[in-house]
């Protein structure tokens, strides 16, 4: 088992939910496939999905819902 970080591909606002009234995509401890969406980045009013990029178990999210993030900033840690 190794720990890997998931980085934000873009600068913008990070969302953990598909919509304000919807549940979060993933919780700490969830098992994910590499193509699973773990959040959204809003950049200039367009929304881009963030994929897990690897199969494993999410250890924890490093960015909060609605937090401004930079491109390349780690947003979650995953145990692969």
């Amino acid at each position: 088992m190794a720990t890997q970080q998931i980085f934000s591909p873009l600068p913008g606002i990070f969302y953990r939910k598909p919509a304000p009234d919807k549940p979060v995509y993933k919780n700490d401890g969830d098992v994910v496939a590499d193509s699973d969406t773990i959040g959204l980045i809003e950049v200039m009013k367009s929304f881009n999905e963030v994929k897990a990029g690897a199969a494993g178990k999410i250890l924890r999210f490093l960015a909060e819902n609605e937090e401004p993030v930079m491109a390349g900033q780690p947003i979650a840690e995953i145990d692969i």
Partner: protein
Amino acid sequence: MAIKKLLIANRGEIAVRIIRAARELGIATVQVYSKADKDSLAVRLADESIEIGPPQASKSYLNQAVILDAARSTGADAIHPGYGFLAENAEFAAAVEAAGLIFVGPTAQSIRLMGDKVAARGAAASAGVPTVPGSQGRLESAEAAFALVDKTGFPVMIKAAAGGGGRGIRIAHSADEFHHLMPQAQAEALAAFGDGGLYVEKLIEGARHIEVQVLGDGHDVIHCFERECSLQRRRQKVWEEAPSPSLAPAIREKLCVSAVALAKAVNYRGAGTLEYLYDDKTHEFYFLEMNTRIQVEHPVTEMITGIDLVREMIRIAGGERLRVRQDEVRVSGHSIEVRINAEDPARNFQPNPGIVSALSVPGGDGVRFDSMLYQGYAVPPFYDSLLGKLIVHDKDRPGAIRKLDRALADLNVEGLATTKPLHQALVRDADVQAGRFHTAWLEPWLESHAATLAAPLPTAKVAP
């Protein structure tokens, strides 16, 4: 009561535009800014600036209480909302006035009336302004909806009463589709706007988007002629011009008179725009909606009429009456505006925030660049992608098109991809040059010209 200190509750190029107008009127300016806009051009230009919160618009530019506090603590006596954000929020307009401040715009009542698209259609009908055939008000039942589309025929648009700006629209081409889409549209309108109210309009195929600029002082209203904004991508305007290349003089007169009639009927105050669809095959026009604010594309009207709309709306808010009579408003020449967005036309208009590493701006007679850019500016990713607007004016449309081509070549923004290559391709297109387009023209054109747009890849560097 003349305004002495104006707070600008907005950002970007429109904040810069408002600061310039205020300064020309001898009015002091206060620029509010989110943490992400600390280094913005508007903050640099304003007399004072005050931070109002984190980058997220919901926590800064949309935070009414913080903006009102900022006005109080800086001693501003008026608030200009620009466009977007709180510009068409009736509750905010009312709160500004309740705080003893001037809202640079119409009354909360006008905003509320025109913000409800069904009420606005009703007001238009009462003022004798034609609207698109469809429901006279909200559809109260599915049966009423079916009875109606039996009469109008297909295709029809299903719209959310609380929607606007192209949101919440569905198109049904047949009765089957209509049956299928109605419940979906209702559920979505309820989720998106908290109001499941719907109305239905016949879809006018091949229609042009033409809008009339009005100025009112609460007593009298004048029009400043029309703009045509038919070149749209995803219902966002990309190229606007004045006057429209498609209107015969008699129809122009009828259209503009109808806009004044409707604005007068609601005792309109400030700058406003009435949007219409125009069918150039039948020469019929239909009122769509009214925007109760200054619009992005206002400069083309300023260029052809010589009226500074932003200065006028500030003067009116300060209690002045209209300073020009209708017969003094005249059209001179032709003006075109193109939107320079931080989007990459070579990559499906992917947004492109970054640092402006080099900038040169076109000049010369009849060339204007309204923007928020300066060399070294880091364009933040948190807001819309509009960087600026390149506006040209010449004696006629062919002259304006040639000047636009020249000015685009003189514009150089390095460090991030912009929509400049799109406009360079449009300006040389035979249909654009002939004014042969409608609101559904650009999207298929973009598909068929994808290869052309992908070719001249500008230096696109991504910010670290």
